[in-house]
């Protein structure tokens, strides 16, 4: 047989984040712990499908009038409207003035990719500034979309908090009009968010330099437990009348991970511009996947449009957020009790699903080898993967990693 035409195709390494689960699955140890992917787990360590989601699915399946016809390229109209209201607020003037175009996309990733492709084609500044560090997939998404990627200082390893001065300096020296990626809340991977006052300063700087904000909102409601509180930074920016892009995901806050539900919104100066922008977004989407999947969006629309289901959702959402906050406190206490050297208060100061422990890749590798703890090599752990039962094991592992002779 002739040599393969693919002989020059090398084997790609596993995706660093998703590869953690691949490695975890291979491990036979009974005490193994998966703190890799940001997927919520119950106290029993099980995936969770929200009961309000099951309800919504049941009503969809029971509805004999439902069909599986292609959605429009921009997705389910009702889903789009409700999603915009969820993040921007129901009485947002930009929505009332029809200045917001919202298109259903494949969760957060798909929304970021479509937004990036749109900017690469239609926006005059093709550089996007992303925080350092950021979600591992961000640079790849934007590079393949056709943008060039630069970073701005964000995490300060010394304080395990925000390098606010560095952030202001780097954004301040960005070229006018450049795109800036902002994590709307619960920064991934650090869990470090600006304060409200710091957000206001960021906003003023961005507007005065005419930078274009691109929000990644993957944790609305999941970070603090309050949908409105977590939407504050985004709403501050939209309230000033300026333009921005916004990627929303329902993977975590509605537990719809595998359904791939999200939305890209572009807030424009005028409704006329919004209409034209939408038409161009369709040209990006059609050659990528034609139109988005219906199932997850239908679940979201069913829940958001129904007052009772919406309330049930907020309760289940708060319960998930509260459990994570409780894990933070338990881990902090456990390390304190062991006298683990170092200041671990960042564990309770950081917010959202992830904690940037500050552990280095050597220590991480040690924890994996000796304690079967699976996490990304940047020291990020998913609190959602912890339970009261497993906190002691993790605390032991961290303690051992930090105190062992190198």
């Amino acid at each position, binding site marked *: 047989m002739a040599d393969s035409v*693919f002989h020059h195709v090398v084997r790609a390494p596993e995706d660093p984040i998703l590869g953690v689960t691949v490695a975890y699955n291979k491990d036979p140890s009974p005490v193994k712990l998966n703190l890799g992917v940001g997927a919520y787990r119950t106290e029993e360590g099980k995936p969770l499908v929200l009961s309000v989601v099951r309800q919504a699915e049941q009503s969809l399946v029971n509805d004999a009038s439902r069909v599986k016809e292609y959605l429009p390229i921009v997705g389910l109209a009702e889903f789009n409207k409700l999603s915009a209201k969820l993040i921007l607020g129901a009485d947002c003037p930009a929505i009332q003035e029809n200045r917001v175009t919202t298109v259903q996309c494949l969760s957060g990733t798909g929304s970021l990719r479509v937004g990036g492709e749109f900017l690469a084609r239609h926006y005059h500044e093709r550089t996007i500034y992303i925080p350092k560090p950021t979600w591992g997939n961000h640079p790849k998404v934007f590079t393949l979309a056709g943008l060039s990627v630069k970073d701005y200082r964000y995490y300060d390893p010394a304080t395990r908090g925000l390098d606010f001065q560095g952030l202001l300096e780097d954004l301040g020296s960005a070229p006018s009009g450049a795109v800036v990626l902002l994590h709307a809340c619960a920064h991934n991977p650090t869990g470090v968010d600006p304060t409200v006052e710091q957000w206001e300063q960021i906003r003023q700087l961005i507007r005065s330099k005419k930078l274009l904000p691109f929000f990644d909102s993957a944790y609305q409601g999941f970070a603090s437990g309050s949908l409105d509180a977590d939407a504050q930074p985004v709403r501050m920016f939209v309230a000033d009348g300026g333009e921005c892009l916004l990627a929303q995901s329902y993977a975590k806050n509605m537990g719809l991970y595998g359904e791939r539900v999200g939305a890209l919104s572009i807030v424009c*100066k005028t409704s006329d511009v919004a*209409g034209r922008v939408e038409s161009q977004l369709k040209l990006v989407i*059609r050659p990528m996947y034609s139109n988005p999947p219906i199932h997850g969006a239908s679940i979201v629309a069913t829940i958001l449009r129904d007052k009772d289901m919406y309330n049930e959702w907020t309760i289940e959402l708060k319960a998930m957020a509260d459990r994570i906050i409780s894990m933070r406190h338990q881990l902090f206490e456990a390390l304190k009790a062991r006298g683990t050297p170092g200041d671990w208060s960042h564990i309770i100061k950081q917010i959202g699903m992830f904690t940037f422990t500050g552990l280095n890749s050597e220590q991480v590798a040690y924890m994996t080898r000796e304690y079967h703890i699976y996490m990304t090599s940047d020291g990020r752990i998913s609190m959602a993967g912890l339970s009261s039962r497993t906190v002691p094991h993790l605390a032991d592992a961290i303690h051992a990693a930090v105190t062992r002779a190198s």
Partner: protein
Amino acid sequence: MASAMLSFASAAASASASLPVHENLKGKTKIGSVNFGSSVQERNPFGKTKHFGRVSMTVAVNVSRFEGITMAPPDPILGVSEAFKADTDEKKLNLGVGAYRTEELQPYVLKVVKKAENLMLERGENKEYLPIEGLAAFNKATAELLFGAENPVIKQQRVATVQGLSGTGSLRLAAALIERYFPGAKVLISSPTWGNHKNIFNDARVQWSEYRYYDPKTVGLDFDGMIADIKAAPEGSFILLHGCAHNPTGIDPTPEQWEKIADVIQEKNHIPFFDVAYQGFASGSLDADAASVRLLSARGMELLVAQSYSKNLGLYAERIGAINVVCSSADAATRVKSQLKRLARPMYSNPPVHGAKIVANIVGDPALFNEWKAEMEMMAGRIKNVRQKLYDSLSAKDKSGKDWSFILKQIGMFSFTGLSKTQSDNMTNKWHVYMTKDGRISLAGLNLAKCEYLADAIVDSYHNVS
């Protein structure tokens, strides 16, 4: 509609429409910065501006960064349904999008799909992220369905299968693979082909050119032209082939012609790239509709196949399909699969679970699988009946003696009527029959009751409009 939405500012933009869009925008912002003192912006970066005696200056300070963006034209295929919806005439007929309709012209959700969804809900399955390559059970089932479970390519693990977003998404992943690993390689697409093919390759930055396919004189296959053009293509080109039920013409090569196509492809070391959107839906038989793919893979060729379950399982909106790459070794397949994953991750991370589970559940259960085959035969059968009735009506009504038998020879959801663009416009404007401008009608949107009306419209458009 587009012109009604143009504001003053964008009217100015379209005046310089010869410039690329981003150049337009640069021009706009320059107007702002040249005519304003910078003090205005510092004082009030995002508030309303003072009047400076020129409307354009006022607009410019508060102007959108996207001001220069023009309204894109509606999608030629999907836009047809939109136009149809807006039409209030009761005689209107939607023969645009290829979505199956019942005899009552209603959308159809297969019974077996409803059963599968109920089962899934009863089982209380979770919604965890799929792996980047998709649901393993789906990938296994889809490759076996396509090649046959006993096929050596399957037994030898030489197929890299990655779940994709229906046909479009699977084609796009393949295009991205070609762009990255076969830089400069060309894809040859049939003339005509599905309207979105060229968009996919354009956006993926893969060069394409056309091979002759449709012969308007015979309303059949220009086989010699097809062979000549494939032969003339640079060695190692990708040849995009419709596995069955060619879209938009409905004209498929015969088995003998497929052998000759395989010959010339092998001779030039080309790589076959199949688009299989109608397996089982064309003839009613899953195996028969996969014959062309199996023929070429039996030759030992490496090839690509994009699959879709939109039509054959009626899962349109669930976006379920797959890209399969048949390689000469299991090792190559492993490597190719890993690189397909690397392309999918920055596009959407991992594919949607719902449609994949439906397919896996149906194909994996013998009773459900048989039910599916029966429903698919029913759908294909209805379309064949409608073809026959349309042919009978046309033959009866058209006194010119024109041979309409191509309608019976064509296969699948679509028929290429041979109507020109102006004739197609007449179909819509005079008869409220919605179709694509290339003369394509979707027989899936036709029922027996409307065949005579459609025949009248076609005869009128063909003979009375030039």
